[in-house]
């Protein structure tokens, strides 16, 4: 087995190699990112000006739903699993993942899930149209027939995530090189360990909630149907019990990525490593007790409203600690601004802006005005796009030379960064204003008073979309280029992955590396 990879399609179908599987995950997520991006552009194109022009409201709702589902479950989560597959074994000095065959499975069921989900677009009655949060009874009694396919697709995605999470935990717990104690692990490994536990805790809850939907739709139960003694509001409670930790599942690994990149380009160790670990754990813990802040207007008792408000405000504290630590890492460093660093710095700034609007949303009375408006859309896109997407992009630029052995084109990287950065802000910043002045989310048409902001957003969205084509081009050009990268790639970066040759051989750390 200590040979190179098999040839042709079999290499990818049967592979149990963590690097191959990581690559598969990353390419798959990029494909999904483009697909979800196309859905987003349909939405933005329809919203370019008041009036219905391009699509009908029914299809518009399918687009918002599919955009959310594909981006969350198809783009962001698999991308982070891909990074974990590639980097966790390299960072802890392990020869591979602990469960290589399960690894193959957890990837290969994903394309089926998304093929099934996408096929609903061509079905009678159309794709799911009830929003990615699929609130009952819109998603049960009133759902299009394709809802059953949606439910099975979610089941498969959940199974894939749970298998991936189990694998990552087993790898981190059992395969660390001798001497790699928990508090010596790189922060990316730490954040993924915590994320994996979150996944195991909440993905089954998502599976459960769609299962209950399935039973309500086809087998006459009444979990979410008031007529039979159920309650549609319970759907929201269970959904957000999954949904809020899910939000952190999409951002904690991002913290790990930028915590690896910023020290390298500041040429200074990460400030407050242990407080970073504790803050991550604190955020993960708090994520289980704040779910109802997504439902402040649902009509909760006053005491519940207050409790969830205070808990939510508390999350600002550990999140603040992280931001302060990154800034302190940069302070008095010796900084350079290569593409990965640019994306990471933008991450810190824009994620913080997303955090600020999050703090505003935490104030329950104010949330009565913000809730379900474009202010919320602006908020979570500021957290997820510069948060998850920028950190993944930063990670790809940072480790790509190690993966393929070639250096990327720095100029092109910078052009990509600035287009994406400008596009992102032009798209999402105006949404704050549209929301504050009263524009609800998920509407296909609007009054003229929101017209200016929407037009700007749409222009930005197409710019941001163009930037991703540049990214694709840049990655392919790097893989095919003949500019070999050095083994260290960067200026004395920390971490075991940089002790390996570039590109990283097919099998690495078959013997545990000695740790100083």
């Amino acid at each position, binding site marked *: 087995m200590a040979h190179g990879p098999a040839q042709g399609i079999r290499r990818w179908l049967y592979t149990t190699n963590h690097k191959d599987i990581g690559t598969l995950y990353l390419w798959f997520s990029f494909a999904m990112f483009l697909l979800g991006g196309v859905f987003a552009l349909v939405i933005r194109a329809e919203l370019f000006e008041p009036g219905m022009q391009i699509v009908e409201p029914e299809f518009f709702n399918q687009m918002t739903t599919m955009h959310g589902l594909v981006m969350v479950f198809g783009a962001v989560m698999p991308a982070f699993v891909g990074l974990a597959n590639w980097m966790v074994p390299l960072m802890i000095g392990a020869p591979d993942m602990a469960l290589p065959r399960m690894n193959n499975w957890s990837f290969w069921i994903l394309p089926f899930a998304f093929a099934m989900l996408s096929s609903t677009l061509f079905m009678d009655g159309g794709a799911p149209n009830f929003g990615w949060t699929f609130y009952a009874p819109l998603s049960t009694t009133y759902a299009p027939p394709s809802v059953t396919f949606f439910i099975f697709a979610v089941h498969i995605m959940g199974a894939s995530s749970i298998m991936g999470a*189990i694998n990552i935990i087993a790898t981190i717990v*059992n395969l660390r090189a001798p001497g790699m104690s928990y508090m010596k692990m790189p922060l990316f490994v730490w954040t993924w360990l915590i994320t994996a536990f979150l996944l195991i805790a909440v993905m089954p809850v998502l599976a*459960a909630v769609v299962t209950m939907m399935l039973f309500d739709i086809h087998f006459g139960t009444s979990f979410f149907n*008031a*007529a039979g003694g159920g*309650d549609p509001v319970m759907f929201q*409670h269970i959904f957000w019990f999954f949904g809020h930790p899910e939000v952190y599942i999409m951002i904690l690994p991002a913290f790990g990525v930028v915590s690896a990149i910023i020290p390298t380009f500041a040429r200074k160790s990460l400030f407050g490593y242990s407080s970073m670990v504790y803050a991550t754990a604190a955020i993960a813990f708090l994520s289980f007790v704040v779910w109802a802040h997504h439902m402040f207007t649902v009509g909760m008792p006053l005491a519940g409203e207050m409790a969830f408000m205070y808990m939510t405000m508390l999350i600002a504290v550990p999140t603040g600690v992280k931001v302060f630590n990154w800034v302190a890492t940069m302070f008095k460093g010796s900084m350079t601004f290569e593409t990965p660093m640019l994306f990471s710095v933008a991450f810190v700034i824009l994620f913080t802006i997303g955090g600020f609007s999050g703090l505003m949303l935490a104030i329950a009375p104010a949330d009565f005005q913000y809730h379900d408006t474009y202010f919320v859309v602006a908020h979570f896109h500021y957290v997820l796009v510069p948060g998850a997407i920028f950190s993944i992009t930063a990670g790809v630029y940072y480790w790509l030379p190690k993966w393929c052995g070639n250096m990327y084109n720095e100029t092109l990287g910078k052009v990509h960064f600035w287009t994406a950065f400008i596009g992102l802000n032009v798209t999402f910043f105006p949404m704050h204003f549209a929301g504050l002045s009263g524009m609800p989310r998920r509407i296909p048409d609007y009054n003229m008073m929101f017209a200016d902001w929407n037009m700007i957003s749409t222009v930005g969205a197409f710019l941001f979309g163009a930037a991703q084509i540049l990214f694709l081009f840049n990655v392919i050009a790097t893989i095919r280029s003949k500019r070999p990268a050095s083994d260290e790639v960067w200026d004395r970066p920390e971490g075991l992955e940089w002790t390996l040759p570039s590109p990283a051989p097919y099998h690495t750390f078959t013997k545990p590396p000695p740790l100083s």
Partner: protein
Amino acid sequence: MSLSANSTKTLVLKLLAGALLMFGFAVFVMPPIYDLFCEITGLNGKTGERYQALPAAIDTSRQIKVQFIATNNETMPWVFKPSQQQIYVHPGEEVEVRYFAHNPTGRDMVAQAIPSVVPFKAAEYFHKTECFCFNSQALKAGQSADMALRFIVDPDVAKTVNTITLSYTLFDITAVTEG
């Protein structure tokens, strides 16, 4: 290696068990906990089951306005309304009101009324000793019914509460009872 393989196996089994446990927790534990939580906090204005009337002192010093609302859900074609819009009651006294229902369609139907009380903090103090909502109600084509509701407002209800609104939403469950 065998030690590591073994410990990996136990760990994986534990994690899998954890995942299964969370699934079971969401399906079997969360709904009852939620119902319990609703009853305690009055979330959604859910009221309790049939109340066993205990002899309690009637607090004649207070008067509470109780309003009655009736709504039909979606395809429900019945005529459904309270016989009176509102009454004033003393906490502790047992009162009876009636709701009228009529099935104007040409088919036999079964309905279920779902109660909801606002303000939520009054829900747990609103005791029903007799209610047509405890059972489903069947009406033959063209038939009418006068349905009874007996209730007591608990004297312990918060002093700030001076209006209680009781709403019934009528759902058509004919398809469910037939199928």
